[in-house]
């Protein structure tokens, strides 16, 4: 009968370490297996459980992380996990499916049997060999306390973003130096007819040329390192780091099938390691000048790429990137208070829009305001807060959060108001709604306190929600506005592509994908008196409260995650390619599977929009 399980046998035979087992054992192995299907995002086991199986991944992928959530490794098809847990009799890590995963489960006793019988098998799984290497790198990262996702799971090719600087062996040393300076490169690869001949680094220039007073007209080949160590682009990053530290070198040419693909430096790797949000938050607090903050904040795009590569959810990515913006703001306010002295009255620094919703991805314009206590007297305290606002706003601008073109900034007196002044603003928006004005004002309904006395905001929010909940006319206006941006889906579920001359034949993932969902969630929240501002939280809270059905809210939440994720991946691709991330996706970038899901998501948004349109007769507003 075993012969009928031949497909499974063949699979095992093709993967390490099962391929080391004798044929007779392999023949018997399939019938000992059990099979499970694990849905994406399901926790397979967590620390301190009694392990029963060795897991062999038939298809899909899982992520192993320690109990603090630090990512240790990612395993894919043909990999195994749970081995050392079985041997120790206790699980140590969290293992979570990151794709829909089919696993073969080898029962504990059978696995132990194999380990007892076959030395190689045991060796593979014991803390030695490959495993020991893995442990070493793991140790290195954990001991630094750096919650990093990078080096264990990233491949060298993930680091190759900039163009590689190359030259032929016969150009002069000075020409090579000039080229390196122009390209801001710390190493140049010397190629002879497409074949890698050597490498010259900054250090070589210094020690082999300047220090020896060599003629700078001499050919560059005279100072190059011949036949340097190289690394393949499929190798993991930690391998490069190990090689560099072992050989005390800082640059490695990257190869792919014998061809030069680029060069990777130690600083590329280090930089990536520090491209962890937690690390960056710490760094931001250490900066003492705007210039330093600006410098630090240039690392944000890299953090984004790292997080996307680590397959974090769009929700958590938005959260982390927004926290960085919040941290920069906070630091700026601390610096401002150091400079201008403590605030004369209590205040609350507000942010609006995506930063407030915790949904920022790439850095965008700053939208902020100052909410001052009712003790605020413009005559007496006006100057202080004006200076404060100007300082923070300039600082944000320097850090890559451009000035808001609509002037929604604390520097604008309209948005630097006492509590009753803000109440008056909201009174106007809600009780005298005007479509255009509301469209501009919608970001004010997504507000969060970044720094200062959050009770002030809380009071304002309670006031706003009480008004908005009761005023259906206002909600109808919001609903009318929410229908401005419609999902790009035509008849027969075809994509409707942008055709504005600049981004032809693309999908605008922001305005036709995310904005409609954000708008809907805002209406639901305001109508139900929910004070959450994050879109996902809003959707989680409003379902079934009367404004939207449980099913509808859940559907929208999934649509949101899907569209956000597709947008993030698109942006990560652009950053890696060295460009500035945008929201315009070519449909060809999508797989069939993604395309169908995206259409489903758009369909959901369309239905929800139509429903709210019908309810509020929104076509008339």
């Amino acid at each position, binding site marked *: 009968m075993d012969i009928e399980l031949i*497909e499974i046998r063949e699979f095992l035979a093709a993967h390490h370490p099962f391929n080391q087992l004798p044929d007779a054992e392999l023949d018997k192995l399939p019938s*000992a297996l*059990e099979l499970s*299907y694990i*849905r994406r995002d399901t926790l397979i086991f967590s620390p301190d459980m009694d392990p029963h199986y060795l897991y062999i991944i038939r298809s899909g992928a899982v992520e192993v992380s320690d109990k603090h959530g630090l990512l240790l490794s990612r395993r894919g098809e043909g990999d195994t996990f749970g081995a050392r847990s079985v041997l120790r009799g206790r699980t140590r890590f969290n293992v979570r499916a990151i794709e829909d995963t*089919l696993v073969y489960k080898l029962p504990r006793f059978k696995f132990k049997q194999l380990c007892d019988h076959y030395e190689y098998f045991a060796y593979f799984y014991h803390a030695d060999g490959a495993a020991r290497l893995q442990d070493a790198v793991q140790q290195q990262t954990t001991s630094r306390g750096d919650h990093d996702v990078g080096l264990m799971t990233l491949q060298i090719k993930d680091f190759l973003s900039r163009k590689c600087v190359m030259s032929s062996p016969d150009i002069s040393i000075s020409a090579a130096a000039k080229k390196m300076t122009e390209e801001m490169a710390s190493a140049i690869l010397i190629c002879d007819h497409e074949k890698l001949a050597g490498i010259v680094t900054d250090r070589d220039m210094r020690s082999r040329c300047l220090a020896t007073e060599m003629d700078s007209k001499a050919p560059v080949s005279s100072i190059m390192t011949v036949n340097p160590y190289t690394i393949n682009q499929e190798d993991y990053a930690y391998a490069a780091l190990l090689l560099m530290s072992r050989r005390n070198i800082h640059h490695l040419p990257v190869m792919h099938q014998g061809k030069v693909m680029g060069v990777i430096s130690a600083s590329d790797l280090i930089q990536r390691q520090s491209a962890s949000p937690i690390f960056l938050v710490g760094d931001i607090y250490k900066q003492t000048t705007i210039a330093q903050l600006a410098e630090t904040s240039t690392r944000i795009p890299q953090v984004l790429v790292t997080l996307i590569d680590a397959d974090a959810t769009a929700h958590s990515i938005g959260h982390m990137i927004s926290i960085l913006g919040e941290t920069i703001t906070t630091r700026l306010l601390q610096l401002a208070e150091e400079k201008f002295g403590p605030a004369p009255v209590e205040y609350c620094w507000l942010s609006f829009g995506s930063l407030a919703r915790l949904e920022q991805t790439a850095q965008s314009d700053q939208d902020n305001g100052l909410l001052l206590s009712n003790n605020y007297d413009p005559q007496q305290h006006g100057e202080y807060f004006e200076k404060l606002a100007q300082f923070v706003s300039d600082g944000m601008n320097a850090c890559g959060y451009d000035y808001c073109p609509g002037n929604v900034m604390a520097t604008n007196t309209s948005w630097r108001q006492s509590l009753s002044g803000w109440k008056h603003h909201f009174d106007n928006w809600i009780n005298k709604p005007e479509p255009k004005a509301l469209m501009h004002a919608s970001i004010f309904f997504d507000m969060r306190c970044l720094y200062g006395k959050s009770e002030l905001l809380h009071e304002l929010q309670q006031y706003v929600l009480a008004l908005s909940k009761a005023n259906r006319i206002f909600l109808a206006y919001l609903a009318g506005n929410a229908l401005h941006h419609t999902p790009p889906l035509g008849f027969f579920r075809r994509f409707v592509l942008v055709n504005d001359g600049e981004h032809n034949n693309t999908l605008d993932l922001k305005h036709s994908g995310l904005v409609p969902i954000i708008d809907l969630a805002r209406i639901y929240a305001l109508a139900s008196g929910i004070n959450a501002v994050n879109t996902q939280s809003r959707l989680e809270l409003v379902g079934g409260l009367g404004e939207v059905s449980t099913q509808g809210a859940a559907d929208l939440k999934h649509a949101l995650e899907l569209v956000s994720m597709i947008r993030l991946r698109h942006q990560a691709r652009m950053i890696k390619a060295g460009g500035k991330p945008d929201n315009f996706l070519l449909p060809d970038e999508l797989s069939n599977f993604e395309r169908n899901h995206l259409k489903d998501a758009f369909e959901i948004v369309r239905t929800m929009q139509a429903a709210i349109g019908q309810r509020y007769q929104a076509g008339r507003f």
Partner: protein
Amino acid sequence: MFEHFFTIEQLRKRCLNKTRSGPLADYLSEPFASPDNKLNQIEFLALDLEATGLDFQRDEILSVGFTVVRNMSVILAESDYFLVRPKQAIPENTAIIHHIFDDASSKGLELEHALLKILKALQGRVLLAHHANIECGFLNRACQQVFGSGIMFPLVDTFTIEFKSLKRRGVTPYNQGMRLASLREDYNLPRYPAHNALSDAIATAELFLAQIAHRSGLDEMKLKDVMSRC
């Protein structure tokens, strides 16, 4: 057509009353799994069979493969596969599909012997198949031939599960996309060579696990939520 008004237990008893004593009656005398049981408390028998054709009135069973699903895991140790000896020669056009030729099949089991194995495996379990009409039809016909009356069993059909959920989402399922292989692809399951009864049975079992994992979750789902009727 009134069958839908009866519970499956009532149907089993009716069926038992019509059956003369013997292996089939023994099988039917044991209660079926309750539709109110949760899925992870139920054992399934994923079964697939190959036949000389698709017409169960005329064609004959050639091979049977099955495996057990317990606690929502496929237990390969309890899987089985065997050939069945048909009375007539295997038509060439079907042999091309399932690669069972006369000389191999002549070493197969007698139909009665094969049915005994199936009944034993099915006892206390729920039949799991993809597009179960075929399996239902052939098993029923075979039991009529061998034991003089038809069989019945609780049934879960992965085809029906998918069909219903597509309908609920307002999608019109099209035939091509509802085949076992295409559905497996939708659930990120690996490609298997088709048309071996055991590998199809395993493939069906995996698809079932995937379908359930993607629906409201094990804790809430009961047998009645996924059960079909023959």
